[in-house]
């Protein structure tokens, strides 16, 4: 599968603008990652063999967008985003839409669930990789560290943990700096917990085809919140901003330009 991340941005923008509700910035910052994950293993995610958990659940529009692109969610259903009686809730709900991997939204909980799923697959002899996307702000939740310590002890195979390092949270810039560098968290992870830490400085250059399959992996992606918005809209203010009509058209044009460059490139 080749997923154009700019097409994902276009779908997300329209989805959120239409409802005047949702999180553009956090969703935009994971589209390159999701596009890469689906290129690698989209078919296995669709059959349910692989599991994708968005622990930073407010970014779920990115997942709905890719599921729409691959035909798992129709255009009609996409228009029911955040509406009553819809499967596409504002934060993912697994018993309504199993492809979401877990019900998330209260930050800090998704990683534990991801580890539980990976361990269960091992115990029951099932194939399948569990991927979990967590936000850098989420690292402030104690439960994330409970989960990481636990993963270190039981080392489930086939577990990939992605940290979207966009240096932002709801209130603005990331509150606890972890020595201000994503590469510092990289060394914390290596020394403290995991043997396999991959670090990408540029979301557009993520490569996932050499992840270790015998131990859990941590992939840190240095990013900007709202990556893929025109410069004037990027960054801390893009957490839950809803563009007005004029802003919407500016952003849409910018995305469509990049979308066709990507297709031609």
């Amino acid at each position, binding site marked *: 599968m080749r997923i154009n991340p700019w097409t994902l941005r276009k779908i997300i923008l329209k989805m959120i603008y239409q409802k005047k509700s949702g999180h553009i910035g956090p969703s935009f910052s994971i589209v390159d990652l999701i596009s890469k994950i689906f290129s690698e293993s989209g078919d296995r995610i669709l059959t349910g063999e692989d599991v994708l958990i968005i622990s930073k659940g407010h970014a779920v529009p990115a997942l709905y967008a890719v599921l729409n692109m691959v035909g798992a969610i129709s255009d009609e259903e996409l228009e029911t985003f955040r509406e009553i009686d819809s499967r596409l809730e504002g934060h993912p*709900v*697994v*018993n309504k839409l199993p492809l979401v991997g*877990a*019900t*998330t*939204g*209260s930050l*800090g*909980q*998704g*990683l*534990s*669930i*991801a*580890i*539980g*799923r*990976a*361990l*269960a*697959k091992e*115990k*029951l002899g*099932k194939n399948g990789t569990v991927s979990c996307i967590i936000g850098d702000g989420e690292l402030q939740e*104690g*439960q994330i560290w*409970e*989960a990481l*310590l*636990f993963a270190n*002890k*039981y080392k489930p195979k086939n577990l990939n943990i992605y940290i979207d390092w966009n240096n932002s949270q709801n209130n603005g810039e990331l509150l606890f700096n972890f020595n201000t560098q994503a590469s510092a968290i990289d060394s914390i992870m290596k020394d403290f917990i995991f043997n396999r830490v991959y670090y990408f400085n540029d979301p557009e250059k993520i490569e996932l085809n050499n992840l270790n399959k015998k131990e859990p992996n941590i992939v840190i992606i240095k990013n900007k919140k709202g990556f893929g918005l025109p410069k004037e809209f990027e960054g801390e203010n893009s957490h839950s901003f809803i563009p007005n009509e004029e802003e919407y058209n500016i952003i849409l044009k910018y995305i469509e330009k990049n979308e066709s460059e990507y297709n031609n490139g």
Partner: protein
Amino acid sequence: MADELKSTRQALGDTLISYMDKYKDNKLIVLTADLTGPTGLLQFSKSYPGNFMDLGIAESNMIGVGAGMALDGMKVVMTSFASFITGRYDQIRCSLAYPKIPCIIVGTHSGMAIGRDGVTQMGLEDIAIMRALPNMRVIQPNNYTNACEIIDYLLKNDLNSPVYLRLHRQPYYDEFGDWDIDGQNITIYFSGCFGREVYNIIQRLNSKGISGVSAEIVRSIKPLLTPIAPTTKMIVTIEDHSIIGGLGSAIIERCSEMEINPKIIRIGLNDIFPESGKPEDLYRKYKLDEDSIYERIIYEFEKLHT
């Protein structure tokens, strides 16, 4: 060992062992948060180490991991003290109740019975918190024997939602036989380890000339399956729990739904934290021992009839 000397937490360990002895179910997984012995699981952890996991002093993670394991088809039992596990309310709410994950959440050391360790170790508001959650069932056995039956049932049947199972540290035995079922005057509803006390109280009330007293054990607090006779004049509820939000509140809610208006007395902890002490001293001071309950019932009954 005779059933008299066993606790409902021991029923957990014993029933898990006999279930595995019989079915060798590789889907069963029992989780502890560093409390293997106190939750009655020591023998199970040794007999079936492949079906047991200690997640350390990290209850929130345990709840999430349990949710994940259940999502991939395992039969999950997660355990801790009632106060600690229900204390992770948001994790239970978002990771288990809202997504309706089938699993068994066990809270032991409910009520004041742990005694000397004190309030932080006691489950005193757990029924209230769990009752408030949609999709959550709330079950409390009253002795070792029916705890074994209930746990066995939960293990053998496909659950379609989470179940909160409230267990106890203390050994307890009661005989709940054929009591006076004409509860015209007073019906006592109790949940948990009060069978002997309630039996004795009924005898004492009868000797004092008060007939028409019956009692019902409530094991399923949510859904509340115990019928309430519309004609009973006075209801007494008894629980080792706050009088806010627990069994007493559930009974009041039901009476309101039935549009009946008996006098209702809730006996439990009166919106007060107890303290460290010997259990028998605590039950006496906080008015949950047999004598206190009996005196309260007499007092309220006489008030009603003057």
